[in-house]
């Protein structure tokens, strides 16, 4: 069974007197241990799709099921807390905290079992993405963009969830850093059995994925 399944997902925005349909009856399923890339031109609904499967928004119609159960039944907050992690383009770290504290915050929110020594675990996750102890105790706004994104990935890992969602994770990074981050995400899927879904317009990222979902082919429709 797929870990995440989307059926007939529809979403639209009001645009003056008309309704701009962004997603029209999208159906897709996602498995653990695979790396998915969602591509398409700007405004085709990539980020909207991500926000729906991340339970940051509610679909107009259709269903999103986690392990066969509607996420609305699980509860949006609980679903975000225990089943998914999101990596954003602009990292979204808490600026007055250091890298370690940013990871510890996420670990303090999830209800998943993580172990007793949280600080050691958090450091292990940071080490696994290439952040050493010295950098782990540095304020995140004193780290480079690539390092901040690694911290964001470590935070996503730390909550022990099955699904990792990423919205243009390499959008603000140089080529070298981008490659490192994509490799990390790929490693999460293939070596740690996570379901990694990345929204990207970067063909290099898409090439490394196991499956490319092109929302562009669905297109946009206008309804009066």
């Amino acid at each position, binding site marked *: 069974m797929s870990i995440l399944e989307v059926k007939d997902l529809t979403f639209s925005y009001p645009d003056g007197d008309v309704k701009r349909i962004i997603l029209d009856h999208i159906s897709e399923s996602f498995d653990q241990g695979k790396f998915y890339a969602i591509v398409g031109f700007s405004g085709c609904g990539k*980020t909207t799709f991500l926000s729906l499967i991340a339970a940051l928004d509610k679909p107009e119609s259709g269903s999103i099921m986690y392990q066969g159960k509607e996420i609305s039944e699980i509860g949006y*907050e*609980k679903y*975000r*807390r225990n089943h998914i992690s*999101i990596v954003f383009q602009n990292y*979204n*770290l808490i600026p*007055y905290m250091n890298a370690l504290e940013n990871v510890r915050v996420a670990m*303090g929110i999830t209800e998943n079992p993580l172990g007793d020594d949280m600080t050691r675990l958090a450091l292990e996750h940071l080490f696994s993405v290439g952040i050493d102890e010295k950098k782990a105790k540095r304020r995140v706004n004193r780290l480079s963009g690539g390092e901040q994104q690694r911290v964001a990935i470590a935070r996503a890992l730390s909550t022990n969830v099955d699904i990792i969602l990423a919205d243009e994770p390499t959008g603000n990074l140089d080529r070298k850093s981008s490659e490192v981050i994509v490799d990390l995400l790929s490693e999460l899927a293939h070596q740690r059995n996570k379901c990694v879904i990345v929204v990207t317009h970067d063909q290099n990222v898409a090439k490394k994925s196991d499956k490319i979902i092109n929302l562009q082919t669905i297109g946009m429709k206008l309804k009066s």
Partner: protein
Amino acid sequence: MKLFKRVLVSVLRRKTCTLILLLLTFLIGNVMAVSIAIQQSSKGIEENLLNRIGGKVLLKSPITDQNQIYALSDEDYEKAWKEFIDSYENLSSKEKVSYADIHYHYNSIQLLDSEKYDLNNKHYENGSYLHGVDSLVFTDEKEELLTLNKGSYFTKEMLDDGWDVMIISDQVTRDQVPFQIGDRIDFSLILTAYDPAQSQTVSVYEKVISYEIVGIYQQIDNKYSDIQNDLELFYVPNQNLVKYEQFAKDFFSKSNMEPNRDRLWIESCMFRVHSLLDLPVFKNTVLNEIEDKQINFYTSEDSVEGLLGTIKTLSSLSENVLWFSMGAMCIAVALVTFYFVKERKHEIGIYLSLGMDKKELLIQIVFETLFVGLLGIILSIGSQKYLSQSFSDYLVETMIRYEDTEKDKFVTNHHVLNPDHLTHEDIVSQYEVHIQGQDLILLLILGSCTLIISCLLPLGYIVILKPKNIMLE
């Protein structure tokens, strides 16, 4: 990282925000602390003063006013006198009354010049008069105004039959007149009448009354002693004054002269209840007793009220300032916290995208505000001591300048209720602002409530925030 750690990290790392909120709550906290301290101190001083004066009731009527009695017709005077004495006797027998006292006064009996002594040329040029009493043990001794150090009090027989006996102040014996128990001091009953031929009042009868000294008292040193020195040197039985007034009445009834007769009047009539707690009940008893009669009454509470006018104004002002400062704190903290929460919109979005329960997030914001706000208020407790004393001293002094002399008159007129003759200045000099444990608890409760209310605006903002709009905008 759990809630309290997050609160602590947020407060300690966001230094500018913390300092602004701390400064704000410290400043307004000072105003609140000062207001509470002034109010509590005012209550304290009122209680102390009431305990010091005790539970007393003073009866007043036209016959207790030397000026008013001459405006009464003979019939009205007799009626007023009877009403007053009946009320006094009824009330003095009540269970709540510890002791009562009534002092008669009769102007027609005056100190007589003598070859043996010259009291009139000593300290008594303002005129000395006889101070009537009707109790076996002087209530003035119970009130700690004097103590009998030679001789004895009047016996029941002396009181009932109005003997020519007196108890004098040792002030008289100190003025180079070494009176002893058993000596006599001469007074003169002088009756006057209008003489149409001379178009003036003339003396028509004089009678020497030789009072035997049965006791000598010593005044207990207090501010009231200065007044008493001039006015109340000679205690005689009330019935003695009644006897000579009756003599005057009889004299004029047998003559066809137009009398310029002095009337017996009551200098004071006071009831002391067992405790302050008995005062409200006794007040009701007095109200029932004097219903439909031309009698008023004042209590020690009224006297304290008069003395505490300035302090009470200050207390009332402080109460208004307290409410105002709570309102100001509410608005200021709400706006500042709202601004900071807006600044932290992204952080809030991160928490929400991580799946944090909104309730937990709201609690975090409230705890952060309470943590910093209460710290500011606690710090203000330290500085309020100096501030509240200086501020209230300044206010009291300013207010006293505006006080007219009416209240001073009030105090003097009610000296029976205020035996120490306390004045506004005495009260103010004793007015020490201090904050106690219970006041601190009150301050912290009011401060906490104000801070929680001030969180409503930022909390409302958080409730309507959508994580998608923040994180994916």
